[in-house]
């Protein structure tokens, strides 16, 4: 898409677009190429040129049991956080959309946690879930040893899921609320006149109308849940206890920066990249569908 009226200049457009292209070349494309190179080679331990090993790094990581645990945890976290934060975001938005008195108070209270950085929120949750002195630790007063995320993997995973759901509810809430407020009032009023109660109106009218938003958010949540969560995991559990909260992203960091195993870390990057590209392409199909659905004004999503 381009304007009918354009400016004529030989060098100016290149000068304007240059900085961004230089930055993405240096910090996006070069590193990606380097990761590809590392995924298929091994650096000899005593220096010298990298040795081409073909698919060995990839097969090694795909068959490693720890990686299977990381995949499993990533999927569990991804599904759980998506369901919780999407569900609660939708419920909060539906009620906030009723426009009662005091709405500005509720909206602010639900929105401002977006500004809290995930690792900072993780510290607060860490304290809440602390087994001896935290608020949740009170269950240990009733039944000693009932709750201990430092030793019990399932507890640790639950704790991480709750913390990361909390950080992503606001995002969904804001989108759902915007979608709900875009529904013309007269449609809902007409349904009410015809005798449809609030539940009936929600399931037969409101929800179908915001379903494009719902699908978009679903895919956005799933994609970001693959890559986010680093801050929360690094602060709360460091992947432990015993890999119980190890995820695909966290393992890339651990193997690359702590284990200094560039080849394995890059092979994992490659796998995650493929996963993200697959989901993003899926997302693009939904965005396209949304564009058709919503009408013509946003129809130039692609060139």
């Amino acid at each position, binding site marked *: 898409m381009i*304007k009918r009226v354009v400016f004529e200049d030989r060098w100016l457009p290149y000068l304007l677009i240059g900085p961004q292209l230089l930055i993405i070349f240096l910090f996006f494309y070069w590193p990606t190429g380097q*990761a590809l190179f590392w995924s298929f080679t091994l650096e000899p331990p005593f220096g010298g040129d990298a040795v081409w090993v073909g698919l060995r790094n990839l097969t090694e990581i795909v068959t490693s049991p720890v990686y299977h645990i990381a995949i499993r945890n990533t999927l569990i976290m991804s599904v759980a956080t998506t369901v919780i934060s999407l569900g609660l975001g939708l419920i909060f938005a539906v009620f906030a959309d009723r426009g009662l008195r005091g709405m500005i108070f509720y909206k602010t209270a*639900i929105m401002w946690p977006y500004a809290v950085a995930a690792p900072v929120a993780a510290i607060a949750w860490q304290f809440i879930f602390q087994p001896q002195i935290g608020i949740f630790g009170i269950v240990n007063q009733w039944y000693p040893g009932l709750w201990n995320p430092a030793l019990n993997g399932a507890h640790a995973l639950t704790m991480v899921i709750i913390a990361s759901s909390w950080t992503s509810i606001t995002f969904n809430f804001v989108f759902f609320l915007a979608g709900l407020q875009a529904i013309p009032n007269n449609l809902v*009023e007409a349904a009410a006149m015809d005798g449809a109660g609030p539940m009936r109106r929600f399931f037969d009218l409101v929800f179908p109308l915001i379903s494009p938003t719902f699908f978009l958010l679903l895919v*956005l949540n799933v994609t970001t849940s693959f890559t986010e969560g680093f801050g929360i995991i690094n602060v709360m559990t460091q992947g432990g206890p015993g890999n119980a909260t190890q995820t695909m992203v966290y393992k890339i960091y651990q193997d690359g920066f702590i284990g200094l195993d560039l080849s394995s870390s890059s092979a994992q990057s490659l796998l995650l990249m493929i996963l993200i590209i697959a989901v993003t392409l899926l997302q693009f199909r939904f965005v396209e569908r949304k564009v058709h659905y919503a009408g013509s004004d946003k129809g130039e999503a692609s060139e």
Partner: protein
Amino acid sequence: MIEKSPILNFVTHAILLAAAFAMCFPIYVSLITATMPFERVAEVPKPLWPSDQLLVNMAAAWKKGAFSTLFMNSIISTLIITVGKIVIAMITAFALVYFRFRFRALAFWMIFITLMLPLEVRIVPTYEIVSNVLLPIQRILEWTGLAWLIQTLSGVRVVLKLSLINTYLGLTLPLIATATGTFLFRQFFLTIPDELAEASKMDGSGALRFFWDILLPLSRTNIAALAVIMFVFGWNQYLWPLLVTTGPEYRTLTIGLTAMQPGSDATADWNVILAGALLVMMPPVLVVVLAQRWFVKGLVNTDK
């Protein structure tokens, strides 16, 4: 509101109160704990009302975490990221919309594809390039044999090295590219009537003049919306500053704070740490609460 229904209104208020409670809960707990003297942190049942040590604990956290430097670093890097992202997004979108030039479509797609390469999946090689931004030039010299040529002719071995580790540039530059911001402005520029560009061309103004005098003032609300989102984004960066800073001189607040956190240790000074957490979250929270309208606009528009 469609109908008057006291029961439904009651349910609405009940659910929204529960929502507000759930969302504020961790911060409320932090606030209460941050006001406690150390002896009362481990108290069970938990106190519900604040005590009077908030400022004392904040001062302690400030001192313990060396927050004077870190606050400065956070402010500087956040400002560079926010301003840099907006400038880069605007000029790129301007070139894409108002010029016809070769490789325009290619440039568009190159920027678009970066959406699929989040920092998390390319951290190690990105770190490598930041530790030597001249590496691509060095490699090109080696591949083309120029390095060998220079070495044989002059006897000088070519080693180009420029590290951005522990600099503000290293902290910010890799985060400044913005596909979403570029698309936001591109979308917006496309809605601006052609007549405006036509009229200013007729009046003899060049492209830059048009950008400065017409586009920039028209983009004010979009700039504000993007600025709010990018400020929060920049302030809350964690993974990247963790990697590219090795000492306290260039560390940001999120790193300094999480370095203080004790794991799940029961005897730690949680009151001081949580007071520090409140200090760290304060600037972005203030921005989001005070600029709520732009925050919502920015969030909905950039992540569409």
